[in-house]
């Protein structure tokens, strides 16, 4: 399988606060990668760098064979990468269907009946069809998260970046969301997923990286990573000499 995304020594700091410190890693086409790390480690900043809402101070980002480091966010989306936001960002005054239509027409560049068909198909797949005519501002948290996913899918992405999409959901809500994401994976979409709900993550991803202080401190098979010393130090607060 070819390489879809590569970060090459990407760095970014806000004054003394380093959110990305010479970060290098890559993602193969079709792969599902999980990202974990403590709060403030720079996980969402990494998404901002990848999608183009934040510019790196040094390093390059490659996507689908192209150097996208200087490409604006909107063009990166049209090139095939989409994200969901940790705090859902719906178009509140538009209906759920119209939210997805924005993604299909602007992100995927589809028109007319084809764009509408894409939206209807995705709404069915993400189980949002019953809410199609509801204004997005009146949705519940789960529905907003599903809308984030639906909208992202309507841009017909090659790469889907999910930012804590399972956070704040009940177990059963989380379970059905995980199923939906697995279905998405089946269609060949590559996924990078930041998540604190580790069991949800483990059910989907085939590789895991750990980020702390803007650096990748571990990268490998999920179960091995979770059992590793670095992760236990971060998550269980163990001292280095235990």
């Amino acid at each position: 399988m070819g390489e879809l995304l590569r970060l090459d020594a990407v760095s970014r700091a806000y004054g003394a606060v380093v959110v990305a410190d010479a970060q290098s890693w890559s993602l193969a086409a079709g792969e599902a990668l999980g990202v974990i790390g403590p709060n403030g480690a720079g996980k969402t900043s990494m998404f901002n760098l990848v999608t183009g809402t934040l510019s790196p101070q040094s390093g390059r980002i490659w996507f689908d064979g192209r150097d996208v480091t200087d490409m604006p966010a909107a063009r990166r989306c049209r090139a095939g990468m989409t994200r969901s936001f940790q705090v859902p960002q719906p178009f509140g005054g538009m209906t759920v269907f119209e939210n997805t239509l924005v993604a299909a027409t602007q992100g995927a560049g589809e028109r007319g009946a084809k764009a509408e068909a894409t939206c209807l198909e995705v709404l069915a797949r993400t189980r949002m069809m019953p809410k199609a005519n509801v204004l997005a501002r009146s949705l519940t948290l789960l529905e907003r998260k599903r809308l984030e996913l639906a909208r992202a899918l309507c841009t017909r992405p090659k790469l889907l970046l999910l930012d804590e999409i399972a956070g704040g959901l009940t177990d059963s809500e989380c379970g059905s969301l995980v199923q939906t994401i697995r279905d998405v994976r089946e269609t060949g979409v590559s996924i990078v997923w930041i998540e604190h709900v580790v069991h949800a993550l483990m059910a989907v991803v085939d590789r895991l990286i750990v980020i702390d202080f803007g650096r990748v401190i571990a990268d490998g098979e999920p179960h091995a990573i979770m059992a590793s010393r670095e992760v236990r130090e971060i998550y269980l607060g163990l001292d280095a000499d235990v």
Partner: protein
Amino acid sequence: MTHAVTRSSRTSRIAAVVGVVLLLGLSAAPWWAGRADMRLMGEIFLYLSLATLWNLLAGYAGLVSVGQQAYVGLGGYALFGLTILVGVPAIWAIPLAGIIGALVAVPVAVLIFRLRGAYFAIGTWVIAEVFRLTAAQVSALGGGSGTSLPADVVRAMAEGRDAREALAYWLALGVAVLVIGLAFAILRSRLGLALTALRDNELAARSLGIDIWRTKFIVYIATAGLTAMIGALIFIQKLRISPDAGFSVNDWTAFVIFIVVIGGIGTLEGPILGTLVFFALRETLADLGTIYLIALGVVAIVVMLRAPSGLWGLIRARAGAELFPISHRVRGETQQGDR
């Protein structure tokens, strides 16, 4: 079960029929209305057009300009300059004023798009002041005291006063239909979808592939050109222009913002309702002088506190009505939120 997407509703179809009938009646006004009524209606159409444009700009594209008087004045001065100095017939000077407005707006946009939020608003005002001060330097057009449209230019427009008044009225009605029709076409299109998304959430819009700068640029240039055209029409009615009248922030921006805000910003119907309310207040209270302005202020404050989405927002929340079929409805299985 299959689903289909529809856009029109029973309300919008009724509104379309009523709109056409109303338009036919209004086009015939020179045969049934007096001169004073026609002047008032002409003014209403021009304010309706200005309000619709400002709504596109501020309500959708998020460009809260308090300097649209720059283009009203520019259009007015373009009309006077083209007719007096170049000898262009007044009728042709109107579309030309629009083109000049759009062209001038290009460098202005490049400059002020670097500013955000409140800074943008102040920037637009400063630009308008620069335009006003520049106009006052043009001695060929009367400098600071302004000038009148020469009698031969006025006479060349149409034979006789009645014909001229009718022409000015039709032009005002025509431009209102053009502006609302264009705003409707834009909002129904792919660009409109991008604009509506921009209105609701800029961050998400950008992440879903919308080129924000380009979208705002298109809207700014289009509204500037049309605003300049309206400016030319306003001063064809007035027959006289001066820097203070042409670039008045009160007349061409403050009243327009009032109309859009009380009517309902970010909806196509809002400015129409707002224009009607504004003129109803003005025609009943204007004789009271200062009290009229106090009343306008009170109405604005009450609406902003009690109905931040304007009077149309209130109606829409209660009845779910939409006169212009812009939104999409999915039909098929039972949908929640159907009305």
